[in-house]
């Protein structure tokens, strides 16, 4: 059996050793961000809502691996769900890369969510609660920002959007 993607959510082993099948990684973009920690970043495609579930599983596994408590796990998985959904609904599909940064003895999770969509015309407005152009409640982007410690949006008309969102463990 190949360490296949899909089928019942992948079990990604996110420690030092080689990870199982980053499912069909569209390389470029997200891959250009160098890994920060000793852990290998993993990139997942998001093209539909089944991928979204796969991403949730992978992010959950990553938060457990890094040592987040249950509430922090829930925060990060929820933020990932919001951002990944944005990437395929508004961005026409994209990728979610999970990185394992370390800083001053703390470990963290960084989500890099990229899409090649039309870009966000006004990021400040998009971060406002209640702003929506799609099927959500308009809390996706702003809400995801509140759930993470660091949040950076890079977007350009016609060139897509990349969001980097990081949460650190408490020590």
């Amino acid at each position: 059996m190949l360490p296949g993607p899909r089928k019942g959510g992948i079990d990604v082993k996110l420690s030092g050793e080689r990870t199982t099948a980053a499912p069909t990684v569209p390389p470029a973009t997200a891959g250009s961000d160098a890994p920060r920690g000793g852990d290998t970043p993993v990139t997942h495609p998001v093209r539909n809502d089944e991928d979204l579930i796969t991403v949730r599983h992978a992010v959950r596994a990553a938060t457990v691996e890094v040592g987040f408590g249950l509430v922090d796990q829930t925060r990060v998985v929820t933020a990932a769900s919001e951002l990944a959904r944005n990437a395929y609904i508004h961005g026409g599909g994209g990728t979610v890369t999970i990185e394992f940064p370390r800083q001053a003895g703390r470990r963290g999770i960084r989500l890099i969510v990229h899409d090649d969509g039309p870009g966000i015309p006004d990021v400040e407005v998009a971060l406002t609660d209640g702003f929506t152009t799609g099927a959500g409640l308009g809390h996706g982007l702003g809400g995801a920002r509140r759930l993470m410690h660091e949040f950076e949006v890079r977007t350009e008309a016609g060139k897509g959007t990349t969001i980097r969102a990081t949460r650190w463990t408490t020590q």
Partner: protein
Amino acid sequence: MTDSRPMDVPIIRLGDVLVTGLINELDDKAATAFAEELTERIAAERAKGVLIDISRLEIIDSFVARTLTELSTMARLLGARVIVAGMRPPVAITLAELGLQLAGVETALNAEQGMVALGWRHAPRPPEGGNRRETLG
């Protein structure tokens, strides 16, 4: 789990209450299909109450929140009261931080309390001296 058809979420009828639950693996399409089916069942079975157990949901993001909110509204318009029961504490914390209040969605700590709120009571004690089966609960 990777079937393209949304997985069926069972909806059980107990008297005039429909009992169902959301599961973690529900994707967006399946959640929407579930909301539609539940709405149809409310009308077809003239349900007065709906209990939605969410104790297995590990996250609620804005899509699921919207689904629950709309479901509650639709049910109310059809004359049924919806109770969403069993939210996990980390989910509640995260929802509050997301800024989602689930306005208009009635909640209960667990399915049992939700059923009580919908008018269900514990079965009465068997009559004294009657033959009873000693089962738990």
